[in-house]
């Protein structure tokens, strides 16, 4: 299989910060909002370079969403920044009415998604945000896999007109996608062609899927690996094409198996092409404190878990 090289570990939130810096220089309509988490969101440079286009909201996420909606009236493109939990669950109804239903051009940018934020524990580790956002009509839901892709996604969504949820994380992870990639919303990225099983991964789990595929290759299993950076709109075609070839699928995400990408794919396949599927996701539990690696191990979210799931689903073909 194709070898992917880690260009040096980095956090996806820094990719977001770099994207914001670029947008600050290239798109005068872009404004940033933050709810007392500038450092965590890595937007200090944007602020330094564009102090007038930054709004410090304080610890008031609901207000932030409403202000963002209001800023679109007058032609601004607001990017809101806080942790994923406070970007979604805390403000679901505000997003629903003032942004999604109102069709406002707001980019909801969420750091510290998933369990890998680590030590802060369950109150901060949202494992439901993909589900929350995907249920909103008209919302685009994006979860890029590494620094480079997060930067590219950040820049790309400014050119898309409409509400977007962009999810990224805290830990430093492998950075392996091209520096100068073009990010196409809704277009799955084929990372490795294979014939025995389809692995569909999103976010931090994409690198893990590639590791699993490598390990599987040594066991004679040819795994197709697809990076679904856009969970909504889902690239139905890419997924269907792949499972029609491989006949089975493993989906993996840093999210509860209930309501996430995996279930979206189950729903798609159930109506189009019923296929054995295994979920590599959290099993309807809250997270806890720990290091990212410990947590990914304990909650079954790494390449070993993916490998195991592949071997299981292969038996069910």
């Amino acid at each position, binding site marked *: 299989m194709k070898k992917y090289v880690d260009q040096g570990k980095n956090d996806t939130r820094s990719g977001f910060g770099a994207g914001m810096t670029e947008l600050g220089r290239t798109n005068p309509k872009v404004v940033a909002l933050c709810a007392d988490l500038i450092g965590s969101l890595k937007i200090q440079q944007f602020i330094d370079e564009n102090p007038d286009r930054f709004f410090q909201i304080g610890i008031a996420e609901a207000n932030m969403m409403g*202000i963002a909606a*209001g800023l679109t009236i007058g032609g601004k493109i607001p990017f809101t920044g806080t942790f994923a939990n406070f970007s979604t669950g805390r403000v679901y109804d505000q997003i629903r009415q003032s942004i999604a*239903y109102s069709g406002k051009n707001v980019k909801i940018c969420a750091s510290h998604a998933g369990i890998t934020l680590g030590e802060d524990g369950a109150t901060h580790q949202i494992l439901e945000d993909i589900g929350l956002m995907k249920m909103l009509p008209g919302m685009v839901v994006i979860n890029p896999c590494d620094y480079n892709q997060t930067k590219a996604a950040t820049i790309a969504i400014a050119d898309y007109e409409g509400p977007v949820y962009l999810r990224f994380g805290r830990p430093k992870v492998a950075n392996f996608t091209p520096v100068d990639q073009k990010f196409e919303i809704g277009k799955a990225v084929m990372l490795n062609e294979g014939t025995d099983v389809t692995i569909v991964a999103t976010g931090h789990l994409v690198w893990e899927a590639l590791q699993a595929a490598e390990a599987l290759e040594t066991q004679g299993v040819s795994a197709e690996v697809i990076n679904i950076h856009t969970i909504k709109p889902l690239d139905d075609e890419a997924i269907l094409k792949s499972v029609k070839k491989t006949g089975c699928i493993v989906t993996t995400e840093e999210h509860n198996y209930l309501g996430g990408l995996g279930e979206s794919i189950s729903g798609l396949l159930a109506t189009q092409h019923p296929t054995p599927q295994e979920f590599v996701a959290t099993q309807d539990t809250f997270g806890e404190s720990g290091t990212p690696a410990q947590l990914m191990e304990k909650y079954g979210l790494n390449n070993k878990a993916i490998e195991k799931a592949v071997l299981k689903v292969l038996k069910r073909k």
Partner: protein
Amino acid sequence: MYTQKIAITFENHKQNVQKMAKIEEIQDIVVQTRRDILRMVHKVNSGHPGGSLGCTEFLVTLYNELMDLNDGFDMDGIGEDLFFLSNGHISPVFYSVLARKGYFDVDELNTFRLIDSRLQGHPTTHEGLPGVRIASGSLGQGMSVAIGAAQAKKLNNDPKLVYSLHGDGELQEGQNWEAIMYASGKKVDNLIATIDLNGQQIDGSTDTVLPMGDLKAKFEAFDWEVLEIKEGNDVQAILNGMQEAKNKTGKGKPVCVLLHTVMGNGVDFMMHTHAWHGKAPSDEQLATALEQNAETLGDY
């Protein structure tokens, strides 16, 4: 859907050419708007007449005399005053005022709350109704939106103002207090937020549901400029009060207007009670109510 932009230019209404001179002319629109409200909610046997009637004088005066409006509508509203209705349940008065101002045909008031209508139970941008810039209905969100729009005006060097309207019961929602703290903290002084102080909400008076104490003291403690209009159903009082409010903008503080209104104003049996918050009149009740408000500009 989400990229669709509505932009219309009024054909028959060069509204800003001259402001209306006489209170009586405003009063005529007020009475006609009351009729519109009553007939709308009666027709579909649902909707919220109480708060709508209580805010009729205010909204009619705002749109016809106080606001600087462009001769058309687009979402951005650059170079004009903006209005946001946070207590979206009083959509009947909003729709009537917009229609009679020329944002859409008055005949469309016939479609209120019917399927496939642009006149949804609560105002929305989703169906592209000119005049509406944000959905409301879930309470407590409008002040934040108004602040955002006001801050966009500042970024755009647009000297025009942003107005908003909120229920008193609605102020029980915490998001308002986030917005109230922010607006003064960040000196959003091109915003005039008006509170419909009718003392009523769904389950009873605000005092029985959740006593809200002294709202003036609260806004002042949150460093707003506060101004009361004691006769919130009197057009002249509204004109005076709102002119004063306008004078207070641009001075570093957001401005709050406490508008003392009577729920159900203009229809004797609907006045002073929460009973008509969200109930439509029967045929006979409608007839009585319309008798008390004789046609002025012509029914839709």
